[in-house]
């Protein structure tokens, strides 16, 4: 298991390397002169040249990349063009709200997704299955911003149960996390259903029933434990979807998180912040996939005992 983890850990290094090149190139793909961009449209020619030297933009690209990489590794992500603060600080302020939002969304998504998936699989082709699966395909098709706005309209404006946006108390988390989790819950439900249905056809499930086990025990212990192995992998991939979805949901709920920061930065053309955010999102995504891989190994005895 230890070796497996180490192997996975080493495996992400090439991906990280290429991702960093991509993100480095990002700024250079923007049409126009990056030095002029940083200095601003009103800056004099001399100022622009000064900025160019300061940022090392006059150096060869390869050298620039390694300077950039070195800075990232030291936690230096540049300076925000909008606030003139270090990008690192900007992001650090916004990190926790987004973190908790995604965690809570994932909790909902897993609880409801699994429940619906298991019920649909065990009540195959009955009304529970049809309802569950129609709900799931609807969940996948729902625009999260619309769902969010409708929830606000109903629960905040009409009923006054929850705040309309921002973070005030624990109540603030409910609507955004439900909005963000709905799509993922739907994906988990569909995947759990098909995975569990495959498992329920396995010979060892028949063995369990032949032992005289209750159907509940067969489904929830014997089948689900096997079905969870692919479900966990897929759920991990959905974290990426959550990170992406948080951008939209944070805009709907005026959430002081990374997603809103990104949108603000895009409209302000605050490239250092955009660059850092993309790096951070990619890093998180890769890290989550790594954790999922390790979890997968832990769940699967065939890998665990090698």
């Amino acid at each position, binding site marked *: 298991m230890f070796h497996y983890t180490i192997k996975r850990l080493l495996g992400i290094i090439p*991906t990280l390397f290429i991702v960093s090149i991509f993100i480095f190139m990002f700024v250079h793909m923007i049409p126009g002169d990056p030095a002029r961009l940083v200095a601003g449209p009103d800056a004099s020619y001399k100022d622009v040249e000064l900025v160019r030297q300061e940022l090392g933009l006059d150096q060869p690209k390869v050298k620039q990349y390694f300077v950039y990489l070195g800075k990232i590794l030291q936690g230096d992500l540049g300076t925000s063009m909008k606030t003139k603060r270090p990008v690192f600080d900007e992001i650090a302020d916004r990190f926790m709200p987004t973190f908790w939002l995604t965690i809570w969304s994932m909790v909902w998504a897993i609880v409801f997704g699994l429940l619906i998936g298991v019920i649909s699989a065990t009540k195959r082709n009955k009304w529970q299955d049809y309802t569950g699966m129609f709900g799931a395909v609807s969940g996948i098709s729902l625009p999260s911003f619309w769902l969010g706005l409708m929830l606000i309209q109903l629960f905040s404006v009409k009923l006054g149960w929850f705040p309309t946006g921002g973070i005030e108390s624990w109540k603030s988390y409910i609507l955004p996390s439900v909005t963000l989790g709905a799509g993922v819950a739907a994906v988990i439900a569909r*995947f759990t259903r098909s995975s569990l249905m495959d498992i329920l056809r396995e010979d060892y499930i028949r063995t369990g029933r032949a032992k005289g086990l209750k159907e509940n025990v067969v489904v929830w212990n014997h089948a689900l434990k096997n079905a969870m192995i692919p479900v966990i992998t897929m759920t991990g991939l959905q974290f990426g979807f959550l990170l*992406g979805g948080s951008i939209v949901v944070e805009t709907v709920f005026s959430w002081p998180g990374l997603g809103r920061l990104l949108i603000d930065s895009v409209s302000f053309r605050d490239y250092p912040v955009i660059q850092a955010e993309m790096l951070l999102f990619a890093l998180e995504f890769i890290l989550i996939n790594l954790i999922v891989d390790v979890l997968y190994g832990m769940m699967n005895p065939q890998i665990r005992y090698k």
Partner: protein
Amino acid sequence: MKNGTVDLHIKDGRQEAEKVRTPFLEFWRKFKKQRIAMIAAFFIGFLFIVALLGPFIAPYSAVEPDYENILSSPSMQHLAGTDAFGRDIFSRIIEGTRISLFVGLSSVFFSAVLGTILGLVSGYYGGWLDNMIMRICDVLFAFPGILLAIGIIAILGPGLGNVVIAVAIFGIPTFARIVRSSTLSIKETLYVESARSVGASAKRIIFKHIFPSTLSSIIVYFTMRIGTAILTAASLSFLGLGAQPPSPEWGAMLSAGRDFLNTAPHVTFFPGLSIFITVLAFNLLGDGLRDALDPKMKD
């Protein structure tokens, strides 16, 4: 003499083999059994008609303001009410259909063409080329879809055309992977081997033999992807990165209606509902096609 778990020799297809069926008839036989997917297909057909006829069937102009009728609730005159400029929301939704379908279809078409070529090349030739293409796909996969699109728009600038490009790019790797994996499995089958042995060129083998076999996966994924593409494009417009007001793009309409959520919720409700139903129809059709064409394919 292996006899599985149950002596169930019903599906050995003896009766079915008696009638020779073309692949299309076989597909049609399975597909028409799925009533929900059929309804979805009809609905999508209807949407295309609406998109084509657009301005001819819309009861009001989609862009002309009418300051007499600002934010009026749904009524017989204005089925979905009017927006902050007094424009008929129902008419704007009809006009928006064209935009959404265009964005969805064109972006997925680009993804499919490029992804399929990459997947075919990658799967057929293998080696360093395969390695390189798949590495790049890995990197694109390292970004959550919409983030990649936002990054691309950050470079290209906001606008509907750039949304199409952004959404198209982030769809490429998935097509490439799907096509690559079916290419790999088909490549080894006998008929390709035999085609190669009679001296067919690589180009011929790829396009005459491998590509048609991957077509069913491509069609299924294409359909499913359209829903996602419409949804993503609408999200980007909602975020202010796509279509700009006064365009009757559904996401942009919704965004514009946010300010009146307290007083006129219908301004956000109907455009959102349109997105939802359209995406739902494509997803249901995709599910149906998958069950009929490619049952092994998972979500």
